[in-house]
Each structure stands twice: as structure tokens, then as C-alpha cells.
């Protein structure tokens, strides 16, 4: 069994080996400025500075048949409290820059704080110097090693945000023979620069022992996803997949104001040319064909209604939203991946079919799941249940992405129709402004696709509090957990008297 000290020794040796000639090689760092040119910190700022830190390394997850599976995986190094609670780990700069108590006190619980792990004043600077991104690597290694999550930490930003995402490569303790780099590919980011696109062939990749901060101006609203782009058939199959979505400006329209007028103001008169469509053939949100008079109002939870897109007509309104990532694991490949053997790609055959890293019945187990890793310690491995709670008479937005690397997967709704309002992070609307959304009972996605489905339970004569419905796959061989002929790609939908929009708790 590899111990941590042995791993750190190997890591040090590896770093010396690769970088013996460099006297200035830096180690871990984060970047999360308190102000920028775009966000000087004024009340008039549109959007905000958002930050997140993730580890790239390995870990273990628990499959629904109880088996322990090895992962190459990302884990949280900021927003740990929110991640543990099933929330996105993305934080405002103020929260991110609040030191995590674990950094200075090993007895503290790192998951009790959302602050960046390891962030501390540079000891080489005078006492009292401000935080400058200096990271104490010890707490980062203590938290980050073998702490992979499946799926990877969820990210959520708003249009007009600047997003600083720091990837810290802590190495893979179970595979010290692999000096693997990792990257982040923000899948679907429009007009991406190749530098921040995460493709190692087209950019730079971060070595073990280093950090790289990706910089994104939030793209147009939509359900995107992200993953490592190093040796994709391997790193994606092994678990380096995550979710990211962007919320629309329409969520900032004042209560009672016209949605159409708000979108028209952006598209035709905004001082920010990014918001105007003009003659752009890739325009993300054309104005509706006509004004249906929709205004911003409160939803079933008593808070202002949220929208999936800048629709201008309320057609993507929801009461509560759920990110759902479809994936598949081939246990043979994962075993080979842990045991230093050459990996066969042609023979890859998924046997676990997962929603948010879990198969049924684990999909309906509340709270984060933990897995014992190779040194006997317990780690939060799969933070996300997929329990769809819908308030009575309400609508749930399912932000569905698929990162399976071997085959297409179908997800069906038993009982509540699915209204498909977005596809590949874009509103379904033609360039004349006509709604091209459609209603269906099942969706089929390839790896590398996403869509937005609204489960509409607004007909209270049909959908009553206490009812349970199901999301399941009609690919019937995917309703299995390896040898168990029951489980797989399935979860429950509950109609509740009310649902807390943040915690998603049913009451």
C-alpha cells in the first residue's frame, strides 16, 4: 500500500526529475482578484467575480452494487461546504477569499467552509500582507489526494460574471507511474480561445504539483458541461467529468416587468454589443416572434421565478432546477486503470449506468455518499443525489448532460411529460423568433451533448402531492448494476407540497 509520505517522496522526485534546471518553478497558486476592470466593485457592476478551485487526481467511488471503483477524478478545493450539500461549488470572490479554517488548523473540518483550501498570506511577505493567491501546499495535499468526486464539482455562474477556475494537479497516488497532466475543457464555450479550451494538443497542460487558472467571461446562458481533455477515452471513462451551467440575465428582470421588453432592450439597444444579435447566424436568443405579455413574477416557492434562457416570453420558467449528468463506467477498464495494465479501448463496455455518478437505488439516497479509499480513510465521493422534487403545480428544469464515452443513452419520463426547451446550451427557437421546443416522453443523448427538459407538473388534477414518478432508461440493459439485474439509469420524481429551491427539500 502506498502511503502519503511515499507518494510525496515520489512526487518530489518526479518534480526534480522534470524541472531540475528550473530554479523558479512555482507550485500551487490560486487566482481570484477582488476587483477587475470589468468588475471594479461598484453597485452598478453587472455580474460578479466568481471563483473555484479544484484538484485533479484520483479517488474511489461506490457503485450501487456496493463495489468500490477506482477513479481518475477532480475534487473540490473550494466551496466544500456547498458541494457536500449537493450545491454548485462556485463562490463569489469574497467567499472564496475567506480562508478555510482547515488551512491553519488541521483539526478543523474543511467541509464546514466554502473558502479556498490552502489560501493563506505568503509567509515570505511582511506580516499583514493581503492574500495574493499564495497556497500552502500541505492542506491542499491533505484534502485533495484521493478525494475525487463523481461527477466532478458542479459549477454555476451567471451571465456577465468573470469566472476564475483554478485547477491544481495533486497527482494520482494509486498510479505513481503516470505523470499525468490534467486540463479543463469547458464544453460548448462559444468562441473559445484555444488557450483556455483545455485541449492539451492545442494549448498547455498542467503538470503534477502545479496550478493553472482558467479565465472565462460567462458565455450565453445554457446548460454546458466540462471534462478533462487529456487522453479523453481514458480520463472521461475514469470519471473526470462535471457539470457547469450559466444562468441568464433574465433572472435580473424586476418583478412585474415585461420579459419581452427586457430582452428587446438587450438585443436592440444594449450598450454591451455582446448582447445584440444583429445578423449573427449563431445568435443565441432571438426575440420571440411576438410579445406574449409575460412578466416576471414569483414562483411556487415564493421567490422570483428563474429561467433557463433569455426567452423573452417566460417559456423556460421553472420553480426548481436539477443538474443531471449521464455517464457509464466499465468496471473492467477501471480495474485495469488501477492496476498498471494497458487499457483496451475497443473492448470498452459500460456496466454501470449513472445519473450524477450514482445508479439506482443510490440515486434516491439523500445527502453525499462516502467511499473508503486505499488508505482506509473515508472521502465524500458522490455528492449528488438525483431526487427530483417538484412543488405542487410547479415545474422542474432538468439540466441534462451526457458524457458517456461509449454509446448513446436514452432517459424517459414515466408520467410527467418532458418539454425540451434547450439543446446543446441553446434555446430552441428559430431565427424568426418561433418557439421550436417540443414535448416528449424520452430523450436520447450522445456523449458530448446536453439539453434542458422541463418536467411540467402544473396540472394539479393529475399530479398530486405525494405522487411518485420515475425517470428511467428504456435501454433496458442499462437498468442494471453490473451483475445485478436491477438498478442502473433510473431515479424518482416526487410531487411535494413545497420544495426549498436551494436545498431541494420536499415538504
Amino acid at each position, binding site marked *: 500500500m502506498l502511503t502519503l509520505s511515499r507518494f510525496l517522496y515520489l512526487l518530489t522526485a518526479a518534480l526534480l526529475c522534470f524541472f531540475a534546471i528550473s530554479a*523558479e518553478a512555482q507550485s500551487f497558486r490560486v487566482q481570484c482578484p477582488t476587483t477587475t476592470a*470589468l468588475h471594479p466593485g461598484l453597485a452598478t457592476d453587472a455580474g460578479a467575480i466568481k471563483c473555484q478551485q479544484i484538484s485533479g487526481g484520483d479517488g474511489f467511488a461506490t457503485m450501487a452494487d456496493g463495489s468500490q471503483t477506482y477513479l481518475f477524478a477532480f475534487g473540490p478545493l473550494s466551496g466544500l461546504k456547498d458541494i457536500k450539500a449537493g450545491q454548485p461549488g462556485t463562490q463569489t470572490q469574497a467567499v472564496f477569499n475567506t480562508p478555510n479554517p482547515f488551512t491553519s488548523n488541521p483539526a478543523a473540518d474543511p467541509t464546514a467552509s466554502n473558502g479556498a483550501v490552502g489560501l493563506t498570506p505568503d509567509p515570505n511577505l511582511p506580516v499583514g500582507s493581503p492574500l495574493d493567491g499564495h497556497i500552502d501546499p500541505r492542506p491542499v495535499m491533505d484534502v485533495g489526494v484521493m478525494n475525487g468526486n463523481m461527477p466532478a464539482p458542479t459549477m454555476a455562474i451567471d451571465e456577465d460574471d468573470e469566472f476564475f477556475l483554478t485547477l491544481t494537479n495533486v497527482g494520482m497516488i494509486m498510479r505513481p507511474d503516470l505523470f499525468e497532466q490534467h486540463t479543463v475543457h469547458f464544453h460548448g464555450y462559444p468562441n*473559445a480561445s484555444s488557450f483556455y479550451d483545455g*485541449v492539451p494538443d492545442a494549448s498547455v497542460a498542467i503538470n503534477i*504539483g502545479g496550478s493553472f487558472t482558467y479565465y472565462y467571461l460567462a458565455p450565453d446562458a445554457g446548460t454546458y458541461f466540462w471534462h478533462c481533455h487529456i*487522453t479523453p477515452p481514458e480520463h472521461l471513462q475514469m470519471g473526470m467529468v462535471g457539470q457547469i451551467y450559466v444562468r441568464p440575465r433574465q433572472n435580473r428582470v424586476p418583478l412585474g416587468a415585461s420579459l419581452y421588453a427586457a430582452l428587446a432592450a438587450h438585443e436592440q439597444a444594449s450598450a454591451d454589443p455582446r448582447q445584440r444579435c444583429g445578423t449573427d447566424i449563431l445568435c443565441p436568443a432571438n426575440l420571440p416572434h411576438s410579445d406574449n405579455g409575460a412578466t416576471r413574477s414569483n414562483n411556487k416557492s415564493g421567490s422570483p421565478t428563474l429561467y433557463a434562457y433569455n426567452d423573452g416570453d417566460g417559456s423556460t420558467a421553472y420553480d426548481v432546477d436539477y443538474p443531471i449528468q449521464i455517464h457509464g463506467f466499465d468496471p473492467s477498464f477501471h480495474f485495469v486503470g488501477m492496476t498498471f495494465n494497458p487499457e483496451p479501448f475497443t473492448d470498452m463496455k459500460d456496466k454501470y449506468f449513472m445519473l450524477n455518478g450514482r445508479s439506482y437505488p443510490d440515486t434516491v439516497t439523500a445527502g453525499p455518499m462516502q467511499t473508503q479509499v486505499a488508505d482506509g480513510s473515508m472521502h465524500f465521493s458522490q455528492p449528488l443525489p438525483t431526487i427530483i422534487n417538484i412543488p405542487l403545480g410547479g415545474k422542474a428544469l432538468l439540466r441534462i448532460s451526457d458524457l458517456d464515452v461509449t454509446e448513446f443513452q436514452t432517459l424517459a419520463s414515466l408520467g410527467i411529460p418532458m418539454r425540451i426547451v434547450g439543446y446543446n446550451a441553446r434555446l430552441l427557437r428559430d431565427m424568426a423568433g418561433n418557439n421550436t421546443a417540443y414535448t416528449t416522453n424520452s430523450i436520447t443523448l450522445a456523449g458530448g451533448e446536453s439539453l434542458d427538459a422541463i418536467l411540467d407538473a402544473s396540472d394539479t388534477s393529475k399530479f398530486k402531492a405525494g405522487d411518485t414518478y420515475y425517470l428511467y432508461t428504456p435501454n433496458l440493459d442499462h437498468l442494471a448494476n453490473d451483475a445485478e439485474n436491477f438498478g442502473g439509469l433510473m431515479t424518482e420524481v416526487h410531487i411535494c407540497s413545497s420544495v426549498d429551491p436551494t436545498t431541494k427539500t420536499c415538504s
Partner: protein
Amino acid sequence: MCPTLNSKTLIQRFQVVAALFATLLIAVAQAAVPGVTSASGSFNLTAAPSYLTQPDGASIYSWGYGCVSGSTPSFAPAAISGANCPTMQIPGPTLIVKEGQSVTVNLTNNLPPAAGNTSILFPGFSVKSSGGTPGLLTQEAASGGSVTYTFTAMSPGTHAYYSGTQGDLQIEMGLYGSIIVLPSTPPANCSSGSSNDVAKVFNGETDFRLSTAAYNHGASCYDREYLFQFSEMDPLIHQQADAQKDLPCTRANGCMSIATEPYHPAYFLINGRSMPDLMDPNYAVQYPHQPYNGNPHMHPGELVLLRVVGTGRWQHPFHEHGNHVRILGRDGNLLLSQNDPTKLAGPLLFTTTTTPGTTLDGIFYWTGKGLNWDVYGHTAGDHSVCVPDANGYYTADPTAPNYYEWCQDHAKPLEAHPFGAVGSGGPVTLPDANILTNGAWYGGSPYLGPDATARAVGSTPIPPFGTVANSPSQEAGFAYMWHSHNEREITTNNAFPGGAMMMMLVDPRAFKINEAN
């Protein structure tokens, strides 16, 4: 205690060697949509056997369509030299015809007698056949015999053709190709010479387009076009065919007994090749039976027509890094808004799934809009100009090196403390280059073009180590992987990288994109 060689590092070495190999061969970028044309609309095709080369060195017995020996087809685009049409190629010759043209395809069956009859289906066209012998789906050519298909090329767009005989075997063996129908009357706004055309001429670039519009519609204009035909191969099926090809036979359905299930493909192909061979030139001599490549290049702001064709058995999710694709039409059917036929109705997709027998046409572009930093590394006071047009781009001067720059981000710095002569005070600090690994297609800096790259790298060595396929001093383009997102399909017979994958380059205007030589 440095790492010893293991399978992983060997694969990484293969990656570097493959990249170097590709670079040696793409001294000049080549792409376009090459194919055969005919003034009379008559094509003399043959179905014949040969061996395909794969990047792992394998030689795979296959069947493909080709041009009848001794026939003299015409080739398009005319500017590609060295065009040829062998008697067998995969995919078959891309037939380029004009809307309304009467098309005649004479097919001769030169497959071994053990393969039995063969044929061609032209889905989407009203086909009349003559000669040959009756088959299940269409008239077939018996071994050594021929059959003639005639149809009128009614609908513009990209179409597939493939064998209608024992499809599970014959299409797997390689009997498929594409037909491109060019619109009869490209709209005036497409053909009047856009400012991208002006830029092309100014930069001395040749026009390789087959037309100026994909359809007879003003929203289907394009500046460049590329064809991507997806398929896969199970080598065990091909080995069985190879072993049985010499069986004596006079039967219409052949005399081979080949198990086509369970299906276990190991090669994932685009235009009959896989990475890295895919990025070598069209008509490269080392692939005598795989003439077409996949090596797309474009400048910022150019509208690029993607012609995507699914073939074979499986669906392949084609992920275009860099931006979304606006779908124009499927199977040659333009998708228009129901109440405003001047407007497009196809969706915006970042992954265009391919399905066997289905085609799509879509428009892609890349401009760098919305990044909040200047990809050209301009600084205030450097005399660079960016005056936004109605859409926010600098299009006033097609001869400018930053033609089509997104002006909102003009002179906005990326780096807080850069090494070299690019703006400072930006949002990020780049990591020490010593803790990074450079990719073979990395342009050498975060910025686009040799000028910005030379200014940005400052005191670090030029060119940065490892950037061998996208010269920092000559090209410094932005590279994007375009690939199957069923990620195991970007492998070649269990080795990564390979398969259905290529790099697309967005090149600065200063780099001359030459699709022929």
C-alpha cells in the same frame, strides 16, 4: 528516479512522433471538398477491392467505389493539383453536380465473384435504373456486369450514396460516398463578392469553394467548405472477406460466409482515414485508396460550411470545439421558419451527431467574440485600429491583419504582469512555463498570430518547446480538436490518439491558407 518506459509513455511518444510526422506532410495546408464533376452528368464508377492503410500500419482488405479504368473524370475544385480517381477508393468519389442536372451513374462490378452482386442507392433522389439484374432494393450489377442509374439532382445540399446490396457487409467493406448538389442560382448576396472575398484576394489566397451558397437561400452563404464522412471498420469482418475472396462463385448473393456480428469496430474513420493520416494532404501518395483528408483551416469571421455525412452502422457525436454550428438542413432539406421563409430554423449545436445514412449542412465560424481580452494582444497606443460595424466587428478594412476582430475587447489585456510587449493590468497571471507541457498544436502563447506571439513570449525562448505543428513564428493559429465525442472512437485499434479526430486551425489573416499547392 526518472520514469521508466511503460505503455503510457510509449503512447505519449507515439503522439509526439505522430504529430511530427503530420507536420512534415502538412507544410502546406490542404482541405476543401475535392471530388469529381461531369459536364454531361455521366459518371463511370466501379466497385473494386484493394487494401487500405491504417495509422497502426495495418493493411485492411476493403471494397470501394472508384472511377472505371481509363475514364477521364473532371475534378473540382480546379485549384487542387494532383487530383486523381483510382479504381477503388474510400469513400467513393465525391460526385459534385449542379441542381437540375441529369445525372447518370454507370456502375461496373469488379468485386471478386465471391462477393456476388453490388449496387448503389441514392437516397433522396428519384432514381431510374436500367440494365443489371433485379435486386432487393434496386437493380444490381452482377459480377463483371454493370447497371445504370439515372436521376435528376433536384435538391441542393449534401447527400450520401452507398451500396444497396448486402449492406451490412458491403457498406462495412467501404462501398459508400457522397454527392454534393450545388444550388442552381446562388443568391446574389452570396456571390457578389463579400468582404471576406476581398480579404482572400488581398492575401493572395485562392478560392476553393464549389459554390458561394449551400442552398438557393441568402442565409446559406459561405467562405470555405469541408466534408466529413464518418464510418467505422471491424477488421475481423475484413479478414474474413480477405480469406474468402478467391472462392469460385456464380451466385447473385455471393459465396462468402462472413459473420458480421458481434460487431467490434477498431478503426473509426473520417473520409476514409483516421488521425494522424487524416490531416495529411488530399491525394497524398501514401494513401492511394484514401484520397480525401480532414484538415480544416479558417480565418476569424469566415463562414465555414460543414458537410457532415453519417455512414456505416453507428452514430458518432461529432464535437466541433470552438463554437456552435447553425444547422442549415438535413439530407439536403433546408430548414426554414414556418412563417418567415427568409429565416433559418435549424438548431444551434456544439455536437452534431451523425447517423448512418443521414447528412447535415451547417455553418460554423469563429471570431473570439466575448472573451473579454484581445486575442491579438493589441495594446493601447500601438496604432492598431478596430472600428466596430453594426455587429461589433472590424470589417471596414478587409486588408487589415485584424480584419474581423471583436472590437469590444480591443486592447483589453489578458495578463496582469506579462513577460513581453502585450498589455498589462489584465485579470490573470500565467503560470511559470516550466510547470506546463506544451501541445504540438500550441501556437506558443495565448494570443493569435506570430506577431502577438513574438511580443508575448518576451524573454522566454522562441519558439516555445514542443509546438511543432502550428509554428509560433509562421502560423500561431488557434487549434481546436474536432472529434467524435464517443471518446473511445478517437483511438486506432486500441492505441490513443487516433480514430475520428482532427485539429481545426483558426489562422491569423497573416497566415496564407492555401488549400492546394
